[in-house]
């Protein structure tokens, strides 16, 4: 009993630790997010939150629903694999409200060289020119129709 009395302070210390530990467990049970651990060591609701983010590019399917005439022209030419928004930019807002939101007019002198300006690293089979030499400053769409760009008179298919 004397031994116990002399070690009493150690028991007090242990009690303080135990109280702290229990408090930690209680606080923890309130703070851990509810969906945590459902699929793995993460907050499962985050998946849904990320999936619900807003969309800027509508996707070519949405364009083709209304603009089937353009699609027809494009599908017969060299740009058949180029999607609409690749040149026209994100159009999800236009798809939601076609009347009031219209795509901006494009400047071909800036747009076309992005792909077609000659560069040694581009694949050899890819059609590329030096824009300044090729057109002498004229806009690309003064000779080429962007939706089907190859010029028939120059010997290409239409």
């Amino acid at each position: 009993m004397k031994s116990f009395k002399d070690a009493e302070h150690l028991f007090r210390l242990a009690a303080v630790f135990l109280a702290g530990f229990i408090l930690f467990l209680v606080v923890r049970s309130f703070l851990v997010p509810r969906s945590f651990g459902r699929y793995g060591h993460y907050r499962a609701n985050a998946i849904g939150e990320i999936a619900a983010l807003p969309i800027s590019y509508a996707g070519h399917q949405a364009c083709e629903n209304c603009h089937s005439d353009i699609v027809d022209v494009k599908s017969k030419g060299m740009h058949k694999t180029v999607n609409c928004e690749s040149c026209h930019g994100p159009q999800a807002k236009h798809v939601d409200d076609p009347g009031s939101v219209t795509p901006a007019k494009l400047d071909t002198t800036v747009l076309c060289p992005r792909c077609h300006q000659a560069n040694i690293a581009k694949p050899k089979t890819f059609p590329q020119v030096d824009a300044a030499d090729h057109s002498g400053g004229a806009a690309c769409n003064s000779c080429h129709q962007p939706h089907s760009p190859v010029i028939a008179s120059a010997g290409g298919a239409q």
Partner: protein
Amino acid sequence: MNITRRQLLVLLPAAAVAWDYILAGTPEASPNYNMEEHWWGMLIDTTKCIGCGSCVRACQLENQVPDGYFRTWVERYHAADWQEEYPQVDSPDGGKNGFPPAKESGGKNFFVPKLCNHCAESPCTQVCPVGATFVTPDGVVLVDQTYCLGCRYCVQACPYGCRFINPATLTANKCTLCYHRITKGLTTACCENCPTGTRQLANLKDPNDPVHEFIRTHSVQVLKPQMATRSKCFYYGLDGSVR
């Protein structure tokens, strides 16, 4: 307020569907998306890349990527004769506005688009101290923006340099494989806008996916295979000099 019987016939089912959503909590994605049917990856055909930067611009617009940071970028390689060990590489502003004319001539020259590899054995998710970054059951590596501490350990652990800290949110950020699009049947912003078909989304669990078929039947490579990250971004025509 007078509600006609017709209006009620429309309102009630709509209310029922809405109530369903409320009961389900946050929906995973669109109602007919099943995570178990998908295991996402990407195929990049470097023989087709023209370095136009459309993918980089599209990604920035779709995902509000801050200037100076990149969820995807394009590198240009110049490997001179016999010098494959030490290629010259550049990526001006990530290739966002294309590339200036090359100063070098001769040798091998090509473009390599890069993005998060969505590794199946992801080293970045391994090191996250709190579980803020994770691999979803359908194989996409995501970051929980409300849980991330911004400790930057994941940025250090990525062998491919695809992560960054968003200066506005001070949390880790990277390519999400446009998870908000692919779960709705759309493709990623970069794939949608690539004019040459260099980048293609793949569902590695779908036997009928033509991209998956290509990966299964052609010689493809991954970046830094020695890191054993089980990267799901497959490259066709990847030169040995690519870092």
